[in-house]
């Protein structure tokens, strides 16, 4: 959560309930899996699955396309 805030320079704040829902959804879809479940410290760690990496790559591609289109259209304007 802190990392997300730092990465986005405070723009994005990921709240606990939202994060919990997102983790569960990603786990159900098989994009992430539980890596370790330390009962003592109650800290749960996840790792990204092969399918998750594939989805992530597709999403990055989609965002790149959006970015390129945006820059191209802006370039035409000026």
């Amino acid at each position, binding site marked *: 959560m802190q990392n997300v805030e730092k990465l986005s320079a405070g723009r994005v704040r990921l709240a606990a309930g939202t994060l*919990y829902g997102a983790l569960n959804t990603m786990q159900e879809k098989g994009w992430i899996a539980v890596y370790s479940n330390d009962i003592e410290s109650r800290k749960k760690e996840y790792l990204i699955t092969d399918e998750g990496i594939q989805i992530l790559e597709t999403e990055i591609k989609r965002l790149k396309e959006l970015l390129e289109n945006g820059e191209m259209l802006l370039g035409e304007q000026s």
Partner: protein
Amino acid sequence: MKKEMHKLFWVWEFQKEEKWLNEMAAKGLVLSHVHYLTYEFDDASPKDYVIRFELLKNAINSPESQKYIEFMEEMGAEYLGHVLNWAYFRKPKESGAFEIYSDYESRVKYLNRVMWSVLPLGFLNLYFGVYNFWIANAFDNTPNYFFGTLSLILGLTILWGSINIYRIKRNLQKESELFE
């Protein structure tokens, strides 16, 4: 010193309740425990706490809810107790902002959950109200007029409350459309 207060809020007054709890915290009375109709405050703890509560998806004693509460604790929130399926938390301000839901999608989903927790009760009361009036009419039975009126008033109140929650949700959805 501990202070105990008894107060009752309707489900659709959840924003008002949260505001009240945080105003109390600002005054130095930090919520420390919650159970039926009772709020316990602690003024020994530092003033700077944020109080949040939410209607859980599953029954409070279910493993799902226990897992969720554990997760909240892992995120630095302190669990203060529950009333029915509503779980109460607090978190020190210095550890950063404390919200439970941060994006439109999860907020809208949550408001739906709150709305559907009361709406069926509203309809049920309206149904009983009309049914009692029908019986009262057919058999000239006065107690049924009394219970019918009571049910109708309660049903309409709950319906009105649900509409309020629906409005909050609509406004959020309109706001989110700006970003699509």
